[in-house]
């Protein structure tokens, strides 16, 4: 009787427990994600894993011959240059791109033809970025670089797919940007997924916090960045208890901070632009909260340090590169940049410099053909491990930069950078169900 029962139970288990045979055995997991924090890893194998291998672009166009009689080689730029709260970031990105082009032109341009930057402003309103990309198509740009705002980048990405022009993104850290299977873009700046893994590892594993509160911008930058952090926090067993929002341009955060104060979190994460983040830090301290504060990487700016002053001390954030690294290329870039623009380059300038140099190198390698430029930038061999001023650029299968993340801590009124600690598990083990 018992045996029968056991057989019946075993039968039921086999009959009802559905599982599938994945078509994607033995592949690396997306995003360098450790098994323990991969979605649903602990209870269910997914039917389909995406971004495991790069998709190919199989359309026509490689056969097109380069035009003759060109007087300039046009490359596009899309960034916030007017009517946007992140214009300072956009201008740095533009300067970085300009510097790369000028240096290329000093080297003789492309076969003696000078490069020309076709500059487009990406006002976020009304999907204008889409129109700007169409304009670039009309202008005949061979590839383009941009942008920072994630809405702009997404809108532009779809347009560039239609036009089939290679996009090199050097400023938008939205993880979903490369989660689109569009074979017409690479991103050469680490995304917020990587930053959040590093930050979560830091606050939970290294600092041992458990109860965190988050205050973030209400825009997509805040929503998607924090969403990524909260996902990881959940899977690490530390669900975030409180999430408060603010609008760009807001100056009084009393209401949100009161809620946070009442909740008595162990530490607070601020996710926003430099100015609002600094004001929030000041108000946190003014309200008597002494908890450790962590922040998103946009605080790495003189503006933040100026506004937050002493309150900035000890605040930790992530950085997509180490601006203090002992890298001769970086030092030369910083010196050239200072000389030309009279200011320190920031993260957007440095990555734009790298991104534009990649475009130039791609053109020099394959010539003036949009598809071939795409092919060489996405082949993950020609420029894989490219040593840029921002360090080593490593693209994953979705052409997302999964290079090193650094931590930045304010000490004595300055950011001090150090490498983020590696999580114990790195990458997905091949033993995981479904692989």
């Amino acid at each position, binding site marked *: 009787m018992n045996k029968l029962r056991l057989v019946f*139970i075993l039968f*039921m288990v086999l009959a*009802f427990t559905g599982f*599938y045979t994945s078509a994607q055995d033995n592949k690396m997991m997306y995003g360098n994600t450790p098994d323990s924090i991969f979605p649903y890893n602990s209870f269910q194998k997914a039917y389909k894993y*995406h971004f495991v291998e790069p998709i190919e672009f199989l359309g*026509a166009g490689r056969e097109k011959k380069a035009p003759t009689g060109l007087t300039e080689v046009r490359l596009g730029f899309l960034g916030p240059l007017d009517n946007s709260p992140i214009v300072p970031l956009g201008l740095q990105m533009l300067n970085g791109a300009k510097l790369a082009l000028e240096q290329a032109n000093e080297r003789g341009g492309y076969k003696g033809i000078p490069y020309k930057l076709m500059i487009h402003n990406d006002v976020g309103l009304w*999907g204008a970025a889409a*129109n700007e990309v169409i304009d670039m198509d009309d202008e005949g740009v061979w590839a383009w670089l941009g942008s920072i705002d994630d809405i702009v980048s997404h809108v532009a990405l*779809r347009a560039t797919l239609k036009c089939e022009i290679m996009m090199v993104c050097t400023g938008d850290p939205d993880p979903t940007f490369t989660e689109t299977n569009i074979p017409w873009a690479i991103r050469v700046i680490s995304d917020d997924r990587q930053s959040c893994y590093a930050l979560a590892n830091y606050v939970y594993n290294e600092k041992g916090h458990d109860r965190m509160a988050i205050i973030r911008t209400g825009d997509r930058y805040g929503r998607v960045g924090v969403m990524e952090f909260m996902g990881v926090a959940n899977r690490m067993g530390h669900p975030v208890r409180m999430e408060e929002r603010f609008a760009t341009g807001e100056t009084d955060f009393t209401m949100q901070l009161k809620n946070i104060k009442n909740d008595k979190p162990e530490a607070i994460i601020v996710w926003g632009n430099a100015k609002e983040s600094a004001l929030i830090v000041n108000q946190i301290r003014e309200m008597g909260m002494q908890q450790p504060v962590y922040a998103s990487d946009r605080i790495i700016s003189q503006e933040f340090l100026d506004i937050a002053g002493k309150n900035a001390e000890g605040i930790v954030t992530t950085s997509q590169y180490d601006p203090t690294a002992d890298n001769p290329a970086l030092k030369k870039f910083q010196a050239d940049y200072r000389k030309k623009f009279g200011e320190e380059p920031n993260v957007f300038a440095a990555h734009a410099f790298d991104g534009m140099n990649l475009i130039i190198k791609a053109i020099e390698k394959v010539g003036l053909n949009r598809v071939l430029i795409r092919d060489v930038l996405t082949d993950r061999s020609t420029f894989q491990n490219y040593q840029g001023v921002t360090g080593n650029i490593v693209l994953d299968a979705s052409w997302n930069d999964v290079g090193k993340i650094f931590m930045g801590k304010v000490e004595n009124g300055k950011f001090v950078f150090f490498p983020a600690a590696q999580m114990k598990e790195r990458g997905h083990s091949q033993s995981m169900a479904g692989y």
Partner: protein
Amino acid sequence: MKSKFNLTFFAFLTLLTFGIVSMGFTRSEKSPDVKESNSVPIYGNWKNFTKDNGLPGNKTYAVRVDGDRVLVGTHEGLAVYEDEKWTTYTTENGLSHNGVIAIDVSELTGDVWLGTMGGLTRWSGGKFEQYTQMNSGMANDLVYAVICDGKDVWVATGGGAGKLDTYTKEWEIFTEQNAPMHEPWTYSVCAGDNKVWIAAWGGGVIEYNKKTNHFRDYVDPDGNMEIDLFPDDGVVHDITTGVSYSNGILWAATYFGLSRYDGRGWKGYFDHDSGLASNFINYVRSVGDYAYLCTDKGLSITDGESWVTYKKNENDKNGKAIITNGESKTEKSFSPSISHNFILGVDVQDDVIWVATSYGLSRGERIN
């Protein structure tokens, strides 16, 4: 004994419950509403058109059959094939932009509506009329899709979906502010049975009920971009590239596979578990019982059960149709085949199919 029985019974109940719950997630082998059919159309006698024989450019984005003529959207303008001759219309004739990426013809008025890279154009009686985000209420000038639904014209643009009431000339636009989409990025739109569906990039499929003016959304329930946890639990991915509705079935295309919705349940299809040429689907158009899927690796036609996929050979003009019925696969060769495997648009009328590809336009005739 009693307690032992109770324990066993409890274990049984638990497993039964788990099993039933699992069934909910388990992929059913056969969707109850998929018709048994082996009559998926097979087309042959292919004839191809490129720049060499009349097209203004080789990249063709969209094709629509309009009575005795065929309208083709290219990167270099609107090409019209009539009486075996090609005529090209460009911005000089009044097009909003030469990049014509979507076409529909109003059954009611016969007007041709063209979605271009620089606005919407109405072509009526030889006259071109432009609608842009600057001169009208349209959301954005990059018009990925346009359809006519009675007196209304719907567009999916880079800045939201929109509806033009051709009677009142008023636009109503739908974005994240008034519809359940995170961002206003729309890619496709279709209509039928008093509903409109919008493919919202990153937002799955948005359904608009014209009777109640209410929206609802269909997203991938697993909530993660990097996986599809269960193929039949909803649309296979939130990044939807196309929607098409006919005979009570909604087809939703993505760059990650295909979904079919019969009003009650979803079913997912991938290249590894069906006859689908590729998971990267540029465009879907359903006519009658069949969905025509434009992928980067050929054209697939399906009724949800059987499949015919057209592929051109890599190195010559010839190609084949791969006919998949369950486990059985047969092939039929063609010489020539379709113009290119990267398919961007398709339309059928009677027994003739027109296929817009990355390199040329193809015309085929039904042979089964």
